[in-house]
């Protein structure tokens, strides 16, 4: 009796440990954590203010739990108070994201918050860019289903995240969407699987319903539909993709320009991309026409990054060097633009006289954007269609032009270097973020050298120079970064606005930085003066004011 009892208890124990581990284990927890704290000094010269609360802190932690086909997660966010330059509509602490998901091979169901993108995002993109304060997560139900190999169906209904005030607050508008995509090679795999020709076609429909409307003057449509299709083709080393989206009339206030204020014109977006690439050589051409494609799940004026449904990508390279990336960065003109871009990458082969032992990589990039050619209808007292455009018909009013070259070479095991040249034409009126409304012409040179002394020690030097007659005039930039082992880094950098027409503003912006990394954990301290800049992601930019003080950052994954 005793013996059977013991056996049954241990068998139960075995079963329980085993049933906890039925899907490999007790379940998996994956998550991350980030906190950015800033302590401010007053610095009247650069207009850096000392807020009453003296310090700001943005933090969040994501926790995702997965067990078998089931997974669920939350994000706890905390803005106490939001750091300077961050949207002030992010306040307090609470849950900003929570979801439950179940999926198997063919079916995937989410309730709660989710992110989503249809095609290139023109028609729908719910995404997060935490460091810029962009989060338009949807809150509702999402289903993805694969009824047959090569056929992918997606649908959702939800509201969008709007502000954060001790928790998630959604906007009033409702968004519904459907997307279907067929991969012909997967669908017809017996005849088409090994084909050099690869074909993907897709189509989307997104509809919004909203009653936010502050104007008694106009009757606005309560439901607005957007629809369109896309195709992706590949043949060997060639690749083509295209997407065309129409957004039905969706009048939206425009306080800056009456010609665009509550216009009942349909919106239109086209993106085309053609590329050829092989080992060591690639060429890529893109063209874009977007007109009146701004779509939000509201019809009242909100912050620039709030309640955006679609995403109109900017056809320009996102630069990484400070003077090239945060003084005159381009972002898509939401009213409309015609844009083109070309990229060429060539690698001079290894072990040649010109290429050196390791080869040399040359990258060229050219991007430009113009205002569309608009034929104004002068119907603002009648039909309010506003104006007419033709796809890719452009005016001679330039918004932006960027020509840049990078040459990168590794000389030996211990030394590598790159030089960059940038030539910008930038119309400040186009993206409405800077102070001086004028056409700015700027040239930038960058030299970047990395020297490795031994396994533990390496130094990186960076020198940048920007010259312009307009705006704030010339800038010089220098940085030295010393890395010790794989854990420690020390950097000091200075930006000097020596060309400013106002002598009082010919200032140094000196910053010091210490970083420590261990595995997936990173800690950094930064102290000094931070220049005002414009930080962009995709078509969305945020002007971050100058600041002076101490920044402490921790990021961690687990």
């Amino acid at each position, binding site marked *: 009796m005793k013996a059977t009892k013991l056996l049954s208890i241990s068998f139960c124990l075995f079963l329980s440990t085993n049933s906890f581990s039925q899907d490999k284990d007790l379940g998996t927890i994956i998550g991350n954590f980030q906190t950015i704290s800033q302590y401010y000094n007053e610095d009247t010269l650069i207009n850096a203010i000392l807020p009453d609360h003296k310090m700001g802190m943005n933090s969040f932690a994501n926790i995702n739990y997965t067990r078998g086909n089931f997974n669920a997660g939350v994000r706890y966010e905390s803005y106490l108070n939001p750091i300077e330059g961050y949207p002030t509509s992010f306040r307090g602490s609470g849950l900003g994201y929570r979801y439950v998901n179940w999926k198997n091979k063919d079916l995937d169901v989410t309730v709660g918050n989710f992110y989503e993108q249809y095609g290139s995002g023109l028609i729908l993109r719910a995404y997060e860019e935490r460091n810029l304060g962009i989060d338009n997560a949807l809150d509702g139900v999402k289903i993805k289903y694969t009824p047959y190999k090569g056929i992918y169906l997606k649908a959702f209904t939800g509201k969008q995240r709007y502000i954060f005030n001790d928790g998630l607050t959604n906007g009033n508008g409702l968004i519904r969407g459907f997307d279907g995509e067929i991969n012909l090679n997967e669908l017809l795999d017996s005849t088409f699987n090994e084909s050099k020709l690869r074909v993907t076609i897709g189509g989307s429909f997104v509809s919004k319903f909203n009653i936010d409307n502050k104007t008694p003057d106009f009757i606005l449509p309560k439901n607005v539909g957007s629809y369109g299709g896309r195709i992706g083709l590949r043949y060997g080393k060639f690749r083509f993709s295209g997407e065309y989206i129409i957004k039905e009339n969706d009048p939206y206030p425009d306080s800056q320009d009456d010609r665009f204020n509550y216009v009942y014109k349909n919106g239109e977006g086209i993106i085309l991309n053609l590329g050829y690439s092989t080992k060591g050589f690639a060429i890529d051409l893109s063209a874009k026409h977007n007109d009146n494609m701004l779509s939000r799940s509201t019809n009242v004026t909100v912050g620039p990054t709030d309640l955006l449904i679609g995403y109109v990508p900017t056809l320009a390279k996102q630069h990484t060097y400070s003077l090239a990336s945060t003084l005159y960065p381009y972002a898509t003109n939401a009213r409309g633009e015609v844009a083109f871009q070309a990229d060429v990458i060539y690698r001079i082969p290894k072990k040649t006289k010109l290429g050196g032992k390791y080869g040399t990589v040359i990258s060229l990039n050219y991007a430009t954007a113009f205002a569309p050619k608009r034929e104004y209808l002068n119907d603002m007292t009648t039909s309010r269609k506003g104006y007419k455009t033709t796809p890719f018909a452009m005016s001679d009013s330039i918004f932006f032009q960027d020509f840049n070259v990078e040459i990168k070479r590794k000389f030996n095991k211990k030394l590598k270097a790159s030089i960059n040249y940038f030539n910008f034409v930038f119309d400040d009126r186009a993206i409405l973020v800077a102070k001086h409304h004028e056409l700015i012409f700027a040239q930038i040179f960058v030299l970047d050298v990395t020297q490795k002394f031994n396994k533990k020690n390496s130094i990186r030097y960076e020198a940048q120079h920007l010259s312009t007659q307009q705006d704030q005039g010339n800038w010089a930039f220098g940085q030295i970064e010393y890395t010790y082992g794989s854990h420690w880094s020390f950097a000091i950098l200075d930006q000097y606005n020596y060309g400013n027409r106002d002598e009082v503003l010919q200032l140094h912006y000196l910053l010091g930085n210490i970083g420590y990394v261990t595995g997936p954990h990173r800690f950094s301290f930064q102290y000094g003066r931070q220049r005002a800049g414009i930080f962009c992601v995709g078509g969305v930019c945020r002007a971050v004011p100058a600041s002076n003080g101490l920044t402490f950052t921790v990021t961690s994954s*687990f």
Partner: protein
Amino acid sequence: MKKLLTLSIALVATGILMAQTGKSLPSVKLKDLSGKTIDISTFENDGKPIIISFWATWCKPCKAELNAIAEEYEDWQDETGVTLIAVSIDDARSTGRVEPYVNGQGWEYEILLDPNGDFKRAMGVNNVPHTFLVDGNGKIVWQHNNYATGDEEELYKKVQAL
């Protein structure tokens, strides 16, 4: 009785041991450059380790890391059979630039696209570069954020230790 006790202990121990395993890759569907959909949790490398490296065309340290590994990659593959999956988090603004860059540099990696950050979120990645090492049983055994010159040597030591 003694036999039974041993059997019971063995049963419980096996149960606990079976529960003691590392983290598996989440199931996320991603596209490769040819447009084919791949569920990352079913990616196999014949029982050999897999490196998953999150990067973007606009991220300098990411490119420095992957270029440094590219020089050694042939040797790494020959010696350990490791495969590297470079997951680009470029969004629609720059996904078109991924393939030209990969070919321009002559990378031999598997390239997957994560344009809206679904896989990045599922893996708890804050910022790029972020590199994971997955063992032959599909368990995440090591991860590292950021890149400093020479970090690839530490990564390779971890690969060899598997």
